[in-house]
Every structure is written in C-alpha cells, then in structure tokens.
C-alpha cells in the first residue's frame, strides 16, 4: 500500500521480533556451552546434547509431549467437528447451553480448569498418568476446535445436506462429501490451535499427571531450579523439529504445485505434508523408544521401577547402568520438598522407591505408609558409614537405607566476608547490616527456622510456641532489614558465580559451589546445625518391591554411590566413596563442606511433630509474604 513510508513501524516490528527471538537465540547459543553456567560462555561443546541423548527422562518427555499433542489434536478435531455439526442442527437452547459449557475451559483461569480435572480424577480414583493427561488435553482442545468450526457451519446453506440427501446420498455421504469439504478451513485452523495449545500446555498437565509421566514443560519446571543446560539442548532440538515441520509445510506444497503447474494451492495441500511429518515424527519417536532394549536373560527384563526423588539428585550414569544391568526401565519423578512428596504418597500414588529426609521418614513410618525392608535381599549395610545408620528416625534401619547426608551452613565469599564476623556472630550475620543486600535465604521452612532458632540459642526441635514466635520475629527482621532474596537451588549457580556474599546452604550444594569457585567457603556456626540425611524407602503400595531392593543395593554400591556423589556434590552414605572423594586426588579434596561435622553437641537431627510443623509452615509463608511486601 504505502511502501517505505513507515520507518517507525518497521523499527517497531524489528524490535518486536528481536524481543521474541532473543531468549530463543540465547538458549540455542548456551546449549553449546562447555560449562554449566547460564551467564558466561566458556567454550564450545556438545556435552549437553550427549547428556540429553543419554537422559531417558528428557527423551521420554519429548515423546510424551508430541504423542499427547498429536493424538489429542486428531481426536479433538474429529470429535469437535462432529459435535459442532450436531449442535448446529440442535435446538437453540441446547446450542446456547453448550456454548456456555465450552466457554468454561476458555474463560476460566487455566489453573482452575487444571484443579477441576485433578479433583475429577482423584474423586473417581482414576490413576493419574499418561491417560489422564491425554484425556485432559482432549477435553480442553475440543472447545477450541468447535469455536473455529462453528462459524463456518453457520455460514453454510442449511439446505445443502438436505439437497444432497434428496439426490440420494446417505446421511454419512452427505456429511463427508458435502458438509466437511465446505468447512475444511475451519477444521484445519481448529486443529492447529488444538496442537499449539497441547504442545505448550504446562499447568493442566502438571496437575493431572502421575506415575512419573512428564511432558517437556513439567521437566523444565521441576528441574529448572538447578542449572542444567540440557534443557537448552532439548529446546534447541524442539526448535529444529518445528522449523523442519514448518519448512515442509510451507515448501512442499510450493514444490508440488510447481511440479503440477497449478497456480493455486489449496490449504488441503498444506495439511497432507503436515500430517505426514507428524506421523513420521511419532513413528520415529516410537522407534527410538523401542530401540536399545534387546537383552538376554537379565533378572528384571521388561519391568518398570518408579522412583520419586529430589530434582537433580542422581548421577549421570547410574540410571542407565542400572537399566543395562537389570533390563528394567526406570521412571523417575522429582519433587522439590518433602511436603510435596508426602501429599502425592498420601493420595495413594504408587512408587517403588522414595528418597525423603529424616523427619519425613519418621512421619511416613508413623502413618504406616512404608513397608519393612527385606534385609535378606540387601547387601549394602556394611558399606555405609556408621554415622548415618541407626539414627533416631529409624533406629534399626528397618525401613530406610541412607542415600545422601550432610549439614546446613553458611556459604560465604572469602573475599567479601570477614571470617571473624562469622565466628563472632554465627547465624546472626544474617542480621548484620554490613552485608545488607548481599544475602540469600533458602526457601525451606524447616531450615530457615533451624537457623533462626539456633541463632537465638534454642533447640531446632523446640515445641515452645514463644520460642517459635521469637524465631519468626528474627526472620521477619532479617527479610525486612537485609533486603534478602529467598531462593532455592538458584543459589548454587549464583554463589558459584560469586554474586552474593552470604547464603544459607545445604552442605552438598556448598561442596559443588566450592569445587567451582575457590573463593567460596563453608561455615557451620558453633551454635549448631541440622544434621540431616535423605534415605531410600519403599512405600506399602509399591508395585515392584523386588526391583526396589535391587536398586537400593545398586545405589549403595561403590560404583552407583560414586557416580551420584561425584556428580551431585552431596556426601555419600557409602563410607568408601566418601573417603575416596574427599581424599587425595578426589573431586572434593580439601572441601570442608563435604565431610559432615560429627563433634558438635549443638547439632541435631530433625524430629517430626505434627502441630509444630503446622505452626512453622504457617509462619514461614508469612515470612515470605513479609519479604515480598518489603520490596
């Protein structure tokens, strides 16, 4: 219309596109980064691609994302079109009511729809997993298909079908030969919307999934706290797939048209290659999944082990090695707090192995969710450190086998923090305005209260409400005067980059930070700390306890434990691994955080107490609200 007369518009357009593509570009670049950091590019490497290919978790998620999207698109397109045709010939009142009903998932906040589905499946005892995710996707996709098909039907001549049938066509033929071809553009755009919604969905999938079934969004959400550049590699792969699909959709019809010398390309011509590409992808993914499973007489061939573990808490190779040795498939689901895990278990979701912390194990035992271990199947106890066995939460280790253990302490930048301040003030350094704006708190209710209680000289297991209230005031003072940031696993990358001077941290994370950055130190105040341990347990409703026992042995054995500990940084429960890693030439030589302190009488192990826990959870959420209002 008006060429070259809109420089302002052009600049704006370029800026908009730059804005949209900047993060995508950034992600692609950093997928080739050698190091783990998200901010500094240290060199070119394909390490994260290799990691991604080896991680069955991510490849499965990719498969789940696309297979759910494709099936949901196909089903919802067919069902939605048929329903729309049906409704258009129904009575007006039915039509209006259904229009309102279809508006429910579109006009409600997505999280409300998601919770509705979740409650539905739980109320009717449908086991959450792939099927529930697929059903939910179909359910929220159909209204979008109908929304785009309906106007096309309305614009049809209502006598069209009747005319066809008067001329002798059966109703089915009238439908497929007359009506559907007329509304094809509406059907196609409906299908496209459905596919987009499904591929990109996070909230609904997150609430209706179970048994370790994850799509890409859920993988990103559950592991994004700890930097794992494999996410960038997966995303780059998705970008590549989508680019190929788009090119095929847009280029193939052009080529076909050129060959057949037709000037006009119908939209249907675009659809055929699109479907072909999608099918090829699904088949490819299936082939990928089926491949690599050819084995002889391994003990657990074809069986599945469901593990529910902390995010980023296993080594790079242990799962693959275990699958190789036993022939079983491991499905790993991650949590980021004990409470999150507890709710799933209490709602009857079934796992074979859980890895909760001390106080939570005590709670699970008390509430009868765990089964006793069959010690005749376990050969690992004599390999474990004495310090982690026979702890008060499970005095005879009837239920649990320790996995990692450690302490909680202060990670500090030696170049910014005076060690004398730390020694004098202990945890009260978190109230020292000298370090204002330079402090991380950790988003864990029990460890934040541990810090406050220990700073005040109380027991971290106190049941005294006045002491808890005092601890609460201490924390509020901290967040209000110190300009703190409350983080979770982001602290690892951030401290490794030296971004703040101080932070409350788990010893294993401190180990990792110190291995990455020499300026960092780890200090445990004399007033005491939390001596924690996370251990493997088998729930009562486990479907494969035999395989679970085999995994416990495998993870406690030297090779498995070494892989875990050297990759994650947490202290291994395996005595030999701990000695090798902290000894001469070990990964963690000279890092004090790796060896938990054993000689301070103020150190404690957490004890579970229901009413105290409730008070602490409530107070902690108020501390966080105070922090967000302090900004």
């Amino acid at each position, binding site marked *: 219309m008006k060429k070259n007369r809109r420089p302002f518009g052009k600049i704006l357009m370029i800026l908009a596109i730059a804005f*949209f593509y900047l993060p995508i570009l950034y992600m692609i670049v950093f997928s080739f980064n050698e190091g783990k950091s998200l901010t500094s590019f240290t060199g070119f490497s394909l390490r994260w691609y290799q990691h991604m290919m080896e991680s069955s978790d991510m490849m499965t998620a990719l498969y789940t994302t696309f297979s759910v999207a494709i099936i949901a698109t196909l089903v919802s397109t067919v069902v939605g079109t048929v329903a729309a045709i049906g409704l258009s010939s129904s009575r007006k009142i*039915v039509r209006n009511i259904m229009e309102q009903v279809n508006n429910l998932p579109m*006009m409600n906040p*997505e999280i409300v729809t998601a*919770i509705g*589905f979740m409650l539905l499946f739980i109320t009717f005892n449908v086991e959450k997993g792939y099927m529930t995710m697929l059903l939910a996707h179909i359910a929220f996709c159909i209204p979008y298909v109908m929304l785009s098909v309906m106007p096309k039907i309305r614009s049809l001549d209502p006598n069209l079908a009747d005319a066809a049938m008067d001329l002798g066509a059966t109703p089915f033929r009238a439908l497929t030969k007359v009506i559907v071809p007329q509304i094809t553009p509406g059907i196609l755009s409906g299908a496209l919307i459905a596919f987009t919604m499904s591929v990109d969905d996070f909230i609904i999938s997150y609430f209706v999934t179970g048994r370790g079934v994850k799509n890409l969004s859920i993988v990103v959400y559950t592991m994004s706290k700890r930097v794992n550049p494999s996410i960038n590699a997966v995303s780059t792969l998705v970008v590549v797939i989508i680019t190929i699909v788009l090119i095929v959709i847009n280029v193939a019809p052009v080529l076909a048209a050129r060959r057949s010398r037709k000037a006009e390309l119908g939209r249907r011509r675009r659809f055929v290659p699109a479907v072909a590409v999608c099918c090829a992808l699904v088949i490819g993914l299936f082939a990928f999944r089926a491949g690599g499973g050819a084995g002889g007489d391994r003990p657990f061939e074809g069986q599945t082990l469901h593990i529910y573990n902390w995010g980023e808490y296993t080594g790079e190779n242990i799962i693959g090695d275990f699958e190789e040795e036993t022939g079983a498939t491991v499905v790993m689901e991650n949590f980021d707090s004990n409470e*999150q895990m507890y709710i799933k278990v209490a709602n009857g979701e079934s796992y074979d192995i859980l890895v909760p912390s001390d106080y939570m194990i005590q709670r699970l035992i008390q509430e009868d969710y765990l089964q006793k271990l069959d010690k005749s199947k376990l050969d690992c106890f004599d390999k474990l450190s004495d310090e982690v066995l026979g702890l008060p939460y499970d005095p005879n280790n009837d239920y649990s086998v320790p996995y990692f253990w450690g302490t909680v302490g202060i990670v500090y930048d030696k170049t910014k923090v005076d060690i004398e301040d730390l020694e004098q003030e202990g945890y009260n350094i978190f109230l020292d305005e000298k370090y204002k704006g330079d402090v991380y708190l950790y988003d864990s209710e029990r460890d934040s209260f541990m810090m406050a209680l220990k700073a005040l000289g109380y027991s971290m297991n106190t049941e005294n409400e006045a002491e808890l209230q005092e601890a609460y005031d201490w924390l509020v003072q901290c967040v209000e005067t110190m300009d703190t940031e409350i983080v979770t696993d982001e602290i690892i990358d951030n401290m490794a980059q030296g971004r703040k001077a101080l932070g409350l941290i788990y010893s294993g994370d401190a180990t990792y930070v110190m291995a990455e950055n020499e300026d960092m130190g780890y200090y445990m105040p004399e007033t005491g700390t939390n001596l924690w341990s996370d251990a493997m347990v088998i729930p009562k409703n486990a479907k494969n306890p035999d395989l679970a026992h085999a995994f416990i042995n495998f993870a406690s054995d030297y090779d498995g434990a070494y892989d875990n500990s050297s990759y994650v940084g947490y202290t291994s429960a395996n005595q030999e691994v701990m000695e090798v890693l902290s000894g001469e030439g070990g990964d963690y030589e000279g890092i004090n955080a790796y060896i938990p302190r054993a000689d301070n009488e103020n150190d404690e192990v957490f004890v579970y107490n229901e009413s105290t826990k409730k008070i602490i959870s409530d107070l902690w959420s108020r501390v966080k609200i105070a922090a967000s209002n302090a900004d």
Partner: protein
Amino acid sequence: MKRFSTLAVPYIVWAALMLVLPMALIAMYSFMEPGNSIISFSFTLEHYVKFFTDPDFLLILWRSLVIAVKTTIICLILGYPVAYFIARSREKVQNILILCITIPMWINMLVRTYAWIGLLSEGGIIQRILGLFGFGDVELLYTEGSVLLGMVYNFLPFMILQIQTSLSKMDYSLLEASADLGASPVQTFRRVTFPLSLPGVINGITLVFLPAVSSFFIPKLLGGGQYFLIGNMIENQFITVGEWNFGSAISMIMAVIMMLLMMAVRKIEIHNQGGKGERA
C-alpha cells in the same frame, strides 16, 4: 440438517463429565469441612472466611490483579502498533510476519521463560550492556520488573494476533473517506480505526489478562521464592500444603472474579457497538 442433531449427544455427555463436573467438584470441595473425601460431605464457609479475613491473602490477590492489569496495558500499548503495522503490510509480508510471531508460541513457554533467567541474572548479557551505560548494578532478576517482563513476553503475541485479525478485516477506504472529510490522522484513528478494531482489542485483553492473573510459573521462575501471586498460592495449597478445600475456595474466588470482570468487559463491547449503531 436437523437429522444430524443426534451427533451432538455423545459430546453433550462428555462435556457434562469432563467440563461441568470438575467445576462442580471444585465448588463442593470449597464448601466442605477439611478432609479430602466427598462422601462425608459437611457444609462449611470457613475456607472463604479464612481467605477474606486475612489481610495478607487479600494483599496477594490485589497484587495479582494489579500486575495482570499492568501486563495487559503494556501488551496493548506495545501490541497495537505492531498489529497495525502487520495488518497494513502486503498480504505476503503479512503472512510471514504472523508466522514470525506464532513460531515462538510453539516453543515451550517454560523454556522461553527459563531463557530469560540467564539473560537477566547478575553478570548476564543485559546487565553487562547496562553496565556500559553506567547502570551495572541494577538488579534485574527476581524483581517485580522481571515478572512483568516475563508476562509481557509470554502473552504479547495473543494481543498482537487478536488485534491484527480485526484490523485486517477493516475496509481501508474508510480511512481515505475520513481523511477526505477533513479528519486529522489522530481523529481518524480515534473515531474510525480504533472503534473498528475494538472486538480484537477486547479479545486480546481477555487472552492476556486471564493467564496473567493466574500465572504461577512466571513469578516462580523470574520472581524468585519471595514473589507470591494468587496462582502460586493455589499451587502451594494443592502441591505442598495439601489443604485442598482451602485451595478450592481460592480457585472459586478467582473464577468468580474473572467471570465478573469478563462480563464487564463484554458489556463495554456491546455498549460501544450499540452506541456506534445509533450514530450511523
């Protein structure tokens, strides 16, 4: 066409089961005494009372609404000119530009948001660039600004595409007519273009506001642990606290607020169209 009406029956059954029943369940849970079984239903209003009597919860609700309004306004201001530019390009260019806006939506939302963490964090590219201009120590990540940015980034395409659709349907000879009749460009925009694009604007506002108000992963990824919005509160109740009844009550409150707001927005639209009709 009447013979096809039976085709709708299976879907009506499905919709009752998969769309209506879940909402009914949320409502039931929200009026139920604590405990997660609907068999032993006993009515209570305590969850609603708990929400409305606690200033902290109300503050979170208020903050969520405010940030969603801010997001919507920014998206409208940024999105409108972009949509206008696209709508007035030649058709071929238009298709390419629309594709450019759509492609990012096909790449996972979380992944794209995640990339912003690297961009915004301390020592990241953006901070280093700002450093060149002497603003090196501005905190970017884990602030309200970063949450706002994440929301605008994720939801802006919805706004652009909606406005573009309704602008491209417009008859541009109207603009010439308006100019011929002596209207200034500003007047033309105010009296002709904008009213005609209003349906798109309204749809865009809906599509941006709705997800913005309930988003919980954007505040969680870009806002850090201390940035709490109503979506995070609901997630927390269901995933880590386990008080489903209270969580359901918050969901109901949110659904009702949204419904009222949407009805109000639709009213504006109908009112405006009615007004135009009279003048014409």
